């Protein structure tokens, strides 16, 4: 393994100190110097006080995990030093507010600087960024354009504060510019939002719920320039039914939520199954059951997503593990929902949704095949090929368009006739089969590592980044299904061919992918599970893999 050029930065303070924002600004500084950036955001369910921190990792190759060591510890409060100083690498440095914090390192007169420039208290984070840039040896000419862009409000004061802090600090490092590139940096939620836009999104409806709200906020911000409808109604029940009303009227619509809200949506999910309404749900998991640990992670809703809603009907579930997959597969979720008139779920989680990821290049978004033209006189549930009925939205002169939550005939009129009931089941089965055939393709499963390697690490979703690094450093293979329903059995089977030990890494108590793999006839030999809400660190997971490999 080649030695990476990489830096880890931890910035910590209280809620309300602008820690996440500071992380993004530092992230943009690094991407502007050609680095790949990943930011893990750790915060508590409160608005003021407590302890928030971000760990930013910048490297010369794509990464989406963090390591245990820290090169720069930026402390806006004492707790940051008390909790994280032990993670400091040998040459690491603590940069701290010299009025509020006692530490060894470079104290910065943050409070005095903010006071002198007459800035707001939150601008302390700008001061610490200024000091970091000087200590890291980043020339002011590089810092200036990034700060100007990232502080569109109060630009003047922020720049003055940053420059004052910059001038007061002493350089210790010389962080080089890597390449002349500037990779875009967005949160997972934003990458999902961009993918939905690329897929032709017309409307996004959501009720706020951590960690999915980032999609709502992002799309609400760009609603005007994109011309999409963004709406926040009274509950997740209203959300899912409004979305189905929008889709009936021809708008490509998505919704977003987390576990509790998803529970409320389940009757609407069944409705979409029966009435054959295209519906896309962004499901960002968090630690449950119930309110759980709302701002921390879990991958424990996979089986729920696979089975949510009463009755039997097709669904397409994807769990992106990288920003480009979030972009591509969110667009694909819309395409599949509209092609088959079914439910699609984009399965994310706290760590993916609220983490920030740079992306080397924007992937091509999949182009949706044109929908089949209807024939007239129109019947909403006319049997087409693969059980798909041509779609038509009202108004259409001379035709009526009826959708129905009851079992219905081809015109959409309620029926209890057994023959028609069987026909409507077969229609759904035909769609399920066609969808499965179309989605069991190499694209559906990410693989990397040595061909013929006997040990395979299996993961899905947000653990991709850490498992990739661990697989690479231990010389193992990684297999990570992106499409989870219909499960791409043939592709997965090809991917693990020749393996002797399959180790599943998952943030749940039971290893839910194991249940799916077992039902498909695969055997998972070992499981590495985590359920404290925190992400795996690279070094921790290496130790865990070595431990289970040696049968402990």
């Amino acid at each position, binding site marked *: 393994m080649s030695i990476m050029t990489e830096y880890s930065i931890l910035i910590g303070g209280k809620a309300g100190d602008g820690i996440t924002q500071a992380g993004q600004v530092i992230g943009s500084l690094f991407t502007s110097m050609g680095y790949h950036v990943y930011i893990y955001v750790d915060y508590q369910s409160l608005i003021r006080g407590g302890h928030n921190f971000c760990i930013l990792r910048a490297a010369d190759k794509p990464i989406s995990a963090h390591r245990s060591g820290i090169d720069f510890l930026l402390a806006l409060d004492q707790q940051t030093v008390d909790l994280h100083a032990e993670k400091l690498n040998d040459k690491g440095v603590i940069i701290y507010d010299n009025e509020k914090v006692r530490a060894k390192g470079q104290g910065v007169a943050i409070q005095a600087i903010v006071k002198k420039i007459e800035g707001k208290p939150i601008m302390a984070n700008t001061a610490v960024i200024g000091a970091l840039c000087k200590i890291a040896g980043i020339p002011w000419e590089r810092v200036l354009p990034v700060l100007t862009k990232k502080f569109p409000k109060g630009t003047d004061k922020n720049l003055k504060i940053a420059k004052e802090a910059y001038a007061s600090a002493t350089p210790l490092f010389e962080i080089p510019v890597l390449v002349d590139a500037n990779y875009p940096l967005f949160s997972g939620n934003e990458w999902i939002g961009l993918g939905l836009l690329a897929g032709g999104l017309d*409307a996004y409806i959501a009720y706020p719920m951590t960690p999915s709200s980032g999609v709502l906020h992002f799309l609400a911000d760009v609603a005007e320039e994109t011309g999409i409808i963004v709406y926040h109604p009274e509950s997740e029940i209203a959300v899912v039914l409004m979305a189905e009303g*929008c889709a009936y009227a021809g708008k490509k619509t998505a919704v977003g939520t987390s576990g509790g809200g998803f529970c409320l949506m389940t009757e609407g999910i069944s409705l979409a199954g029966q*009435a054959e309404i295209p519906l896309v749900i962004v499901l960002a998991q968090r630690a449950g059951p119930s309110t759980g640990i709302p701002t921390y992670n879990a991958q424990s809703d996979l089986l729920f997503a696979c089975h949510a809603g009463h009755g039997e009907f097709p669904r397409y579930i994807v769990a992106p593990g990288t920003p480009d997959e979030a972009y591509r597969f969110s667009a694909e979720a819309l395409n599949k929902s509209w092609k088959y008139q079914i439910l699609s779920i984009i399965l994310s989680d706290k760590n993916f949704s609220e983490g920030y990821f740079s992306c080397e290049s924007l992937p091509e978004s999949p182009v949706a095949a044109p929908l089949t033209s209807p024939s007239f006189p129109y019947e909403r549930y006319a049997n087409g090929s693969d059980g798909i009925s041509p779609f038509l939205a009202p108004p259409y002169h*001379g035709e009526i368009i009826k959708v129905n*939550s009851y079992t219905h005939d081809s015109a959409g*009129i309620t029926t209890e006739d057994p023959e028609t009931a069987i026909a409507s089941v077969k229609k759904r089965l035909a769609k399920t089969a066609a969808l499965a055939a179309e989605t069991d393709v190499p694209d559906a499963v990410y693989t990397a590592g040595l061909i013929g390697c006997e040990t395979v690490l299996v993961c899905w979703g947000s653990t991709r980044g850490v498992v990739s690094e661990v697989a690479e450093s231990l010389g193992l293979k990684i297999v990570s299904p992106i499409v989870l329903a219909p499960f791409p059995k043939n592709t997965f089977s090809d991917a693990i061919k020749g393996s002797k030990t399959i180790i599943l890494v998952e943030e749940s108590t039971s290893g839910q992918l194991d249940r799916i793999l077992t039902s498909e006839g695969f055997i998972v030999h070992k499981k590495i599970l985590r359920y404290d809400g925190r992400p795996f660190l690279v070094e921790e997971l290496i130790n865990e893999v070595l431990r289970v490999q040696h049968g402990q």
Partner: protein
Amino acid sequence: MASDNTLITQAQNTWCQGCGNYSIQHAFIAVVAGLEQEGIPRENIVIVSGIGCHAKIADYLKLNSFYSLHGRTIPVATGIKMANPNLKVICFAGDGDLYAEGIAHLIHAAKRNIDITVICHNNRVYGLTTGQYTPTSPYGFRGKSTPLGVHEYPLNVLEVLLSAGATFIARGYSRRLPLLKRLIREAILHPGFAHVDVLQICASFFNVTSVYENLVYEREEKNSQSFDLASLAAREWNYNDDTKIPLGILYKVNKPSLPDNIQPQTNERMNVIRSIIERA
């Protein structure tokens, strides 16, 4: 106006003899036919029904329809209207459906003044599930789930709607057909959230025709923009006692409604995405 048979499907009608649903359907068909003559084509109408006896109207009418879930007509209708403001979206809901399971949606629809019409088939009992109390059943109602009598006073839904901000509130009665037609027509043409509570009997489980015949009267509507007078009118009958029951439009005002008809920008999507990424 004679019934327009071109608006009736082949579906077999299974409402009980004497059910008030027939009158509501008849009145609505007449209104649709009238609107069509005034330039609102029938394909621009979408009806949304809940689940219950009332909801079968979705099967019976040859119109665009979304036969939705119990209590959920309003969010579905809201989505349709937001997606295409040119559509006239009318909810048909039952009192159990709308005032129990769906009450939150009703309050918020009134609050946001979404430009849809809600017609509640209020027979004050669950019919399709064979006779349980609903939010508008009288105190002491003996149903299958409350054999000793229900220990709840009914909800005065018109007061609730006034408090929530509805801009058109009316009460009809299935046996006053000319009035019912007028109320439905005005509700559909009202620019904002319009609610028509239609009293009807349930021929099988709550037949109170003689009570309604004694108590209902058509009120004067000339001060219908007054919130205070509307409040008094809403309180004349509390859905429980044997006091006079006012029919007609209780309240009608104009306020900004949703959707707001602002023409969205239509920039080329990939150009917008690139611009979002570049400025990040």
